[in-house]
Each structure stands twice: as structure tokens, then as C-alpha cells.
């Protein structure tokens, strides 16, 4: 399987939809919580998730991924549908376009500094 945001976004979106189907009252924060708290920290071989550190020689520049690389880990659909506990953030949420715009603005500022 390919890696990267473009590959993961549709998978995670699909699993988010399954969670919403099972728990229609879940807020976006509750869905995100279910996805995150149940994520796996190891890959299919049972080994630590690795992060690529350089563009050149990606295979030899890997080291164990930190949460800054991998977030909570690899999504686990079965576990995410039965999370047990959730961390919730109310029933209101930021409209995605606003959130993205805010982030872009913030990042621009960070880069300029």
C-alpha cells in the first residue's frame, strides 16, 4: 500500500463514516477520538512504525516514528468502532474551510518568522 496523506485521507474518512453510522450522536471530536485512541503503534510485521528522515535514500534514513511523525499511529477500523472511552469536545465544531484557512494563515506566519 502507498503511504502519505493522499492515501490515508480516504481510508480514514471511510472509517469515520462507519463510526458515524454506528454512533449517529457522535460529535466530530468523538469520531476523531475513537480513531486516535484505538490506533496501532506497530506495522503489519509487528514492528515499530518508521519515519523517513530525508528525501534522498529514504530506506536508509528511517528511524522510529514519534507522535510528531505518525500522530496516534495506524488507524484500526475494527478497534475504532468499539473505542470504549472517548474524549469529546462538544457538539459544535469549526467548519472545515475556516479551520484550514486559519491553519494556512498561522503556518504562513510561522514560516515568515
Amino acid at each position, binding site marked *: 500500500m502507498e503511504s502519505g496523506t493522499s492515501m490515508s485521507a480516504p481510508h480514514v474518512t471511510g472509517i469515520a463514516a462507519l463510526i458515524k453510522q454506528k454512533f449517529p450522536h457522535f460529535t466530530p471530536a468523538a469520531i476523531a477520538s475513537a480513531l486516535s485512541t484505538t490506533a496501532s503503534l506497530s506495522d503489519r510485521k509487528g514492528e515499530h512504525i518508521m519515519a523517513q528522515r530525508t528525501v534522498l535514500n529514504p530506506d536508509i534514513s528511517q528511524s522510529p516514528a514519534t507522535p510528531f511523525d505518525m500522530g496516534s499511529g495506524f488507524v484500526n477500523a475494527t478497534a475504532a468502532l468499539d473505542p*470504549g472511552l*472517548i474524549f*469529546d*469536545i*462538544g457538539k459544535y465544531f469549526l467548519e472545515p474551510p475556516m479551520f484550514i484557512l486559519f491553519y494556512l494563515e*498561522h503556518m504562513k506566519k510561522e514560516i515568515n518568522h
Partner: protein
Amino acid sequence: MAANVGYNEYMKFLCGINGSSPVVLNYTGESCSSYNSSLAASDLNLPSVTIAKLVGTRAVLRWVTNIATTATNETYIVGWMAPDSVSVKVSPAKFTIGNGQTRVLSLVFRAMKNVSMASFGRIGLFGDRGHVVNIPVAVIYKIAV
């Protein structure tokens, strides 16, 4: 289900980012000064904890809600792996929670050394009915007091 923080908390979170008020006003039409307080980034009720600068000791609260559909009660044991140069204490370290109930956990972090490189840890909630809840922890600057 408890909705402990909502729109206001997201606004306070955004307003809590240093220098964000003009941007918040631009995109929301709301002024940060109309919110009485701002929220430190670590205090949004996320299933993770990031502390950019840990000076001495810092307590962070997290609310968890039991949404399990099969069981009524579940007893969780809390385990953790502290980030380098940080001590961690979670209380309660063991709790029983009924379906639909919410519990607050207090996570206390203490800087043990002065280190500026990020270090990472983990908090795990292990239920006796098989649920495992994983929370990554990241602490960047550590300043021991």
C-alpha cells in the same frame, strides 16, 4: 453523552495561540477580547497531550466518557511511560465507569531536567472488558524548577 466543551472552547483554543487574534477576527468575525479567557493549547480535551514548554509542574485535565454499547461497567487501569526528563502521574490510576458516564483524569507532568529537545511518552487506559485507550504525550522544552 457529556458535551463538556464546545464552540466556546474551540474559540478559546484559537485565541490562546500567541498572536492569533487578528486572524481569528478575520475568519470568524469574532473578537478574542469578547472571550473572557483563552485556553492553553494543552487544555483542549483531545486524546493526546502536547506541552510546548514545561516549566516545573503542570496539571492537565482530560474528560473521558464511556460509550461502550455491550457492557454497563468497565474498570480501567491507567499505565504510562513518561517522556525523557519528565515525570508523569495520572490520577485516579484505576477507575470504574458506567455506560454513559464521564470521568475526569488529572495528568500531572513535572520537568526533571533542563532539556530543549522534544521527548515523547504515552498514557494507556486498559479496561477489564478489553478496551485499550492510547494517548500520546509530547513535551518539548523542559525547565526544571
